[in-house]
């Protein structure tokens, strides 16, 4: 199998899972085995066939079809997409295990539909990762939106329906009104939407128009959750936790910031942004989002809501990295896609495990729970450290590069923003751990039939995944160099 065919195959591969899920829907164990097998083989394709080619400097790709003259559905893998593809496909496996534990432990209904939509969303994420032009990216971006809608509204309650309305309204609304317009504009100005090293807009669009175009891209990508288009993300927390974990901490939201990063690098070109200063305003929007979302997170008692606002804040790190338009910023942003993915998915896994194991959803209810669920809370601690950006977690590296980038661009304010944000994230994440381990359990704990000292974790499949991803965060600390060398192929 050549890498080029592997690229097309990888995007279509999750659809095999869909077929298996449909065939085996009456036998849940076989059905889940189908998901796991597909996930494992998908990762093997991405990491085993495509990665070596990209590492060697290749750009494997293929053209599917030409929809209208000049507008092609095509794939081409470059380092940023490679990283995103690896993260999405790799964490899908872990999440699939977790889903089994969670969905069964939580007695969720319509599990077949759940797994089908999940697989389609992964296909969409890989399509976004491997897209060779803005059009292809847009197609798969919309596919993600549509396939995750049934996941957000999974429970079918009034609350879920309202959340779904906001989800679809913001994500589709911004993409149609702004992103599509930006795409048409780009095409009209340059005659192409292909992602090209160095960008395609230089000399074609300039002055304030460049800023407007960047704004259309940045706000058109609602999945990046830049304020004021962030409300869909907390709303989406009504979904089952595996969805919040993989999709609303990794695949969906990362597809958003990935889009911005990719557009900045391959459509605008960081040189163009750096010389014209057209991205300057975006650093301020990102900085505002970073700080404001952190402050909101501090005030949220619901654990998933707190994590959601934390995600909004962290996503803007990547937007900031892109908007700074330095090579360190791009590398830091790309690296943060990985690091934050591992950190945040751990936190969501833990939140779900707490929900399944102890039926708690609010931070204020977590007193003393750490002694009952030491693995869960231990993983939560490691995930928190990674999100905060402390060694020995991978998150420290991406933050390092982002700081470096701010320094390179002489944006001292942005350095301060990053530091303040770290402090704020300590403020909203550490209380969870502190309450769990150091506060005594409330005396009137209604499920006191389990002794307060004995270990009573959620089912194994709910606990193991966060431990795995937390350990992954440590491993990444030591292997950040590999990611760096891969990403350094993006910027000369």
């Amino acid at each position, binding site marked *: 199998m050549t890498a080029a065919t592997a690229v097309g195959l990888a995007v279509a591969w999750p659809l095999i899972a869909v077929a298996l899920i449909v065939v085996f829907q009456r036998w849940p164990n076989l059905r889940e085995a189908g998901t796991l097998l597909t996930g494992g083989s998908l990762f093997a394709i991405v990491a085993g066939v495509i990665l070596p080619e990209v590492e060697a400097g290749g750009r494997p790709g293929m053209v599917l079809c030409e929809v209208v003259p000049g507008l092609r559905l095509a794939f081409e893998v470059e380092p940023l997409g490679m990283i995103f593809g690896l993260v999405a496909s790799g964490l899908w496996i872990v999440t699939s295990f977790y889903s089994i534990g969670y969905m069964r432990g939580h007695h969720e209904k319509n599990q077949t539909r759940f797994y089908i939509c999940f697989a389609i969303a992964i296909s969409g994420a890989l399509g976004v990762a491997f897209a060779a032009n803005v059009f292809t990216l847009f197609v798969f971006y919309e596919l993600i939106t549509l396939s995750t809608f049934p996941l957000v*509204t999974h429970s079918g309650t009034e609350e879920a329906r309202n959340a779904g*309305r906001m989800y679809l309204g913001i994500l589709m609304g911004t993409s149609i009104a702004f992103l*599509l317009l930006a795409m048409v504009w780009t095409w009209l100005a340059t005659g192409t939407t292909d992602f090209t090293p160095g960008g395609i807009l230089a000399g074609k669009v300039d002055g304030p128009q460049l800023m407007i175009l960047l704004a259309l891209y940045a706000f058109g990508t609602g999945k990046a959750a830049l304020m004021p288009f962030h409300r869909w993300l907390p709303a989406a927390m009504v979904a089952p936790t595996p969805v919040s974990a993989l999709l609303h901490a990794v695949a969906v939201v990362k597809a958003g910031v990935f889009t911005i990063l990719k557009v900045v690098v391959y459509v605008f070109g960081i040189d163009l942004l750096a010389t014209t200063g057209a991205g300057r305003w975006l650093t301020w929007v990102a900085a505002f989002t970073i700080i404001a979302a952190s402050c909101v997170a501090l005030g949220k008692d619901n654990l998933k809501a707190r994590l959601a606002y934390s995600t909004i804040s962290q996503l803007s790190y990547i937007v900031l990295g892109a908007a700074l338009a330095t090579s360190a910023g791009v590398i830091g942003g790309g690296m943060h896609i990985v690091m934050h993915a591992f950190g945040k998915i751990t936190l969501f896994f833990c939140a779900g495990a707490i929900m399944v194991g102890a039926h708690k959803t609010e931070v204020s209810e977590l007193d003393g729970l750490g002694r009952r669920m030491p693995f869960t809370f231990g993983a939560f601690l490691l995930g928190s450290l990674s999100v905060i950006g402390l060694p020995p977690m991978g998150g420290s590296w991406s933050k390092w590069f982002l700081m470096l980038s701010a320094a390179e661009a002489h944006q001292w304010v942005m350095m301060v923003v990053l530091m303040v944000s770290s402090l704020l994230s300590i403020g909203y994440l550490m209380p969870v751990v502190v309450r769990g381990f150091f506060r005594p359990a409330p005396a009137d704990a209604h499920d006191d039939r389990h002794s307060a000292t004995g270990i009573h974790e959620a089912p194994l499949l709910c606990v193991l995944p966060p431990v795995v991803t937390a350990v992954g965060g440590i491993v990444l600390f030591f292997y950040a160099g590999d990611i760096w060398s891969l990403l350094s192929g993006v910027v000369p």
Partner: protein
Amino acid sequence: MEGLWALISDDLPALQIAVPLLAATLCVLIRRPTAAWAVAMVVAWSSFANAGVLLHRVLTTGTISYVEGGWPVPWGIELRIDLLNALVLLVVTGICAIVLLAAPRSIDAEIPRDKQYLFYAVYLLCMTGLAGMTVTGDAFNIFVFLEISSLSSYALVSQGRTPRALTAAIQYLVMGTIGGTFILLGIGMLYMVTGTLNIVDLANQLALVGPNRTVMVAAACIAMGVGIKLAVFPLHIWLPNAYTYAPAIVTAFIAATSTKVAYYVLVRFAFSIFRINQTFDGAHSSAIAMMLGIAAMFAGSLVAIYQDDVKRMLAYSSVAQIGYMILGLSFANEYGLTGGLVHLFNHAIMKCGLFLVLACVLLRMGSTRLSAFAGLGRRMPLTFAAFVLGGLSLVGVPLTVGFVSKWYLVLGALEAGLWPVAVLILLSSILALVYIWRVVEVGYFKAPPEGADAITEAPFSMLLPTWILIGSTLVFGVWTSLSVGVASAAARMLIGGGS
């Protein structure tokens, strides 16, 4: 077979008119519903094949000119098929053929059996009129065929189950007659000025005469008349009632053909006869058309959001979609006109598919009110999935035909330097998302009422045409050589001033 082909091969354009006309009379003589349906099917599908052959011929050998009775142009009546009407003809005959597949089961529930043969007869007459308007190269003939198609569509609309169908048909008749009269007036004035009715000749004479007052008034009359037929906002008031109260199958048929042919006539007059972008200073008319188009997009979509009857909702959606087509024409550049023409093709497919979905729902639920859609996602999964896909196409999600239309319309707006209009086009498609998603939510989230009858999926004979069309919205959303290829070539020809 060979001999037969040799015999008719040159007369294919005339057969587009003659065959359905004769078959309509045949249906009246047969008087049996199934046999009449079989006749109509044979005729419609062979016309569709005929249109395919004609399009192929136009693409390979250029414009076809067919003189009736051998009288030379411009004295004799000419049938003239170029890229533009070849495409429209393909759409019209294709829709006629596909809709007929669903007709027997659907009209069984709405039209008494002993009158069904008349339905097929009138259906074929309507098809005759539409095909005639499309293929003719004679301005007066456009009027004649317009009346044939209009009169038969009034009759078709009046077949609806409720008495309101009659008032809707009367309203349609009054408006349509006014429109027809305006068109006749306009054509009469053109004849007065130029002494000819042949479209090509008319265009050449007009170029010599120039835009004098009579010609301007003629143009205004024709725009007004065609505007009524096309249901351009605010001349659309006949449309919602006609679409809502007509039998489901009739709505699917008329919505996808009648307004499309009217749009064709408008484009033909504007670009082939008046050549608004060359001989005339079209700036004013373009500006008016643009404002009407934008008003239609928003008014239609906003009103659609508040409808309780899904059929009526889609009718208002049609008003909005017609606005897109008008807008494409108003840009008077290649991209914009391509967008308008591609949308003619695309909208015909998706709206016909959606109205067939409603025909399925009406058959099983007895109503197309929003409440009838409760839980339909589970009760009629295939039908409802078709609705969702068709709806997404209306919104303009990529890989559906709606996206292709929108792409060219936005390109046209940007090419004309009209930024705000491009934004408005996109904003209005978000409105489409709102009205479609209202129905989707009810279908998937609302439980059917307690003790509701067990509802089964629609019959195969109706699902098949529905899915042919909905499938086409996906196929032509990815493979656009036919739709965009022909439309952009036609647009280039029209902008260049040819005919």
